[in-house]
């Protein structure tokens, strides 16, 4: 306790037991908790990364679809069951429509008599081009990457790359095969 009336009391001398002081305790606690937090963060990150496999055992998305001359005008369903793709030929190009309804993922049907794709789940309807015109589908069907193989001239379709009309991607040269 100080005897001078207006000065602060003097702090006690640094108390320590075997060198353990308030300062050293705080230093170690900070180190310990930082280490704990870092380890926890690392563990959570590792857990999340664990859930995303690097290798998928799914069928390959790229396939050869035959010679372009074997495709007549209109919708061809020969690959629909195996690869989920329609090959469509119009007067100036050939393109591949992915047979997955953009509403909730069912497989639409091609109704040749009515000249439209129609989804049996909720009634989404699409024109031959893939553009949606009825039902709950919010956007057109997606087109898959399509090209001609350099070695044997066959059509090659790759479902892994998609072209979306609403993003202006149908004009991309890889979204159709020209003047076929």
């Amino acid at each position, binding site marked *: 306790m100080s005897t001078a009336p207006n000065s602060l009391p003097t702090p006690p001398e640094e108390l320590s037991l075997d060198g353990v002081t308030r300062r050293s305790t705080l230093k170690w606690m900070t180190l310990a908790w930082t280490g704990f937090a870092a380890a926890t963060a690392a563990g959570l990150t590792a857990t999340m990364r664990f*859930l*995303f*496999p690097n290798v*998928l055992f799914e069928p390959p998305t790229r396939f050869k679809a035959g010679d372009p001359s074997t495709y007549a005008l209109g919708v061809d369903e020969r690959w629909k069951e195996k690869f989920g793709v329609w090959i469509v030929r119009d007067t100036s190009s050939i393109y591949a429509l992915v047979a997955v309804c953009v509403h909730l993922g*069912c497989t639409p049907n091609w109704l040749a008599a009515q000249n439209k794709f129609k989804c049996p789940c909720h009634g989404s309807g699409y024109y031959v081009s893939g553009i949606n015109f009825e039902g709950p589908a919010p956007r057109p069907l997606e087109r898959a990457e399509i090209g001609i193989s350099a070695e044997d001239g066959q059509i090659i379709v790759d479902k892994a790359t998609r072209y979306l009309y609403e993003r202006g991607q149908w004009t991309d040269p890889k979204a159709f095969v020209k003047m076929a």
Partner: protein
Amino acid sequence: MGSRWRDIQQAIVSSQLWKSIFRVGIPDTNRKRVLAMLGNVVLHLHPVKTRKSGVKMRYTWCAGGVTFFLFLVLTFTGLLLMFYYRPTVEYAFVDILDLREQVPFGIMREVHRWGAHAMVISVWIHMFRVFMTGSYKPPREFNWVIGVILLVLTLLLSFTGYLLPWDQLAIWAITVGSNMASATPLLGIQGPGTSLLKIGDIQLVTSTNDARFGLLGGRFVGAGALLRFYVLHCVGIPLIAAFLMAVHFWRVRKDGGISGPV
């Protein structure tokens, strides 16, 4: 004859084997009754005494208790089903058929399914009852929140379990349901704001790196989804639900027992 029987009884009850299991002895005093309850790992989950308010069925409908009972039935029947069901694309569907036809008491599969329906119904009735009796009001608000989370977990258990028979209903229901995950903001490939997450030109969130992919373990509902949903259904979600139920029941206990006055 009677005293012979009493001698045998006395010998058993004073043996070290008996005393090591039953530490308190016959609960013939109030003190011993309390000690017997508190010292037993199963018995102490219930309060020593039950209040009269706790048995007012017209008030509580016993809806929470029925839900918990159904959860236990589902756990038990589910465990039994696990002896015969293999969560692979090759076996899932035929294993369910075999369960129904080749296994004695194969009705177990239906009991599990009906129990699931019943549990969803009773959990809604419980929620309705709690709302109608105002049992969510302070100081019980947090327990209501826990209850809502438990409701969501119950529905998720139904969702994950629906895929396991691997029939047309299952695959398409889960396809439609999981497609919603791709609409997650920022983390789903069709969600708003996702194209903002990129480093330079490279998109960080792609069809093999979004919330839907993490849920399905693949680009479509296939072997990965079946196995993930199986693990979530049998282990993951039940563990979380069990923990939250412990908190839920503990809260009721500590607030003075079910349907006690505020």
